[in-house]
């Protein structure tokens, strides 16, 4: 496989594994009487394992499954760090609109005391 294709695969699997990992942690640590996390957590763990096996077989620098998971999570977090500035541009645009927005008159809030 060409190096460009491999790079694309690493970034995609990195984002995939990081999100799966975050969602597993989220489900376990926000457990409540009405949540049913067993099936999603098991399937997501299985998907992480398969992704790690793919990375392990394709990347010569990675020697173990744990190494593949570490490598992919780093790729995923780096992707997030690159996306966040662009998200902040969108947030700042909406903040700019909110700053100069004229709030409509409210009978309850704006009435004299």
């Amino acid at each position: 496989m060409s190096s460009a294709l491999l790079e694309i695969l690493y970034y995609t699997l990195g984002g995939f594994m990081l999100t799966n990992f975050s969602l597993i942690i989220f489900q376990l640590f926000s457990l409540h009487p009405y949540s049913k996390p067993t099936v999603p957590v098991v399937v997501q763990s299985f998907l992480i394992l398969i992704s790690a096996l793919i990375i392990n077989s394709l990347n010569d620098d990675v020697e173990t499954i744990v190494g593949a998971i570490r490598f992919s999570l780093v790729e995923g977090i780096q992707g997030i760090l690159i996306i966040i500035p662009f998200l902040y541009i969108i947030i700042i645009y909406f903040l700019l609109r909110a700053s100069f927005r004229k709030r409509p008159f409210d009978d309850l809030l704006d009435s004299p005391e």
Partner: protein
Amino acid sequence: MILGSTLFWSAILLLMVGISFGRMGPSFSRSNFSLPIIIMGILLLIFNNSPIENPESDLLDSVHGFAPWFFVCSLGCFLVLRGSPIYWKVRYPQLSIGWIIILLSFYLFYEYYELPDNFLLVSLFSSLGAILSLFLFILLVRFVENSIPLEDPAPELTEEEKDFVKKIISINIGVEEK
């Protein structure tokens, strides 16, 4: 994995756990622990002096460039939100300080943060992977929720329960119970 890398992943885990604890809903009482755990994770990330091996050391370099503008910009956004006329009247001190801090974060961004050459490729395909994962998660949750049989309708309240509800509502709306 050496100690520095283990501590690095522990910090990331603490950040994720802290964010998960912050959710609202039936587990809301855990949200009290959200901020302390997030702060613990950040402190562990900052004060981890043990040597770190690759690939974590590359990521830590990116985090060091990313963190200054991110925290300053987040603070600015928070102040602008507090000062904007969204739910209340405009608060000029918060609003103006917020915008000054956001402008300062732009300076920090250009000074300390460097986007990689292939940033479009990275952001596009990382997002694709993340969206794929979210989509699968939604499908899994939908499958689990659909496989749970519907419960029987709840029985009507007893007289004692009705009196209890009336009492609570009367106290809350400040009306004497008749």
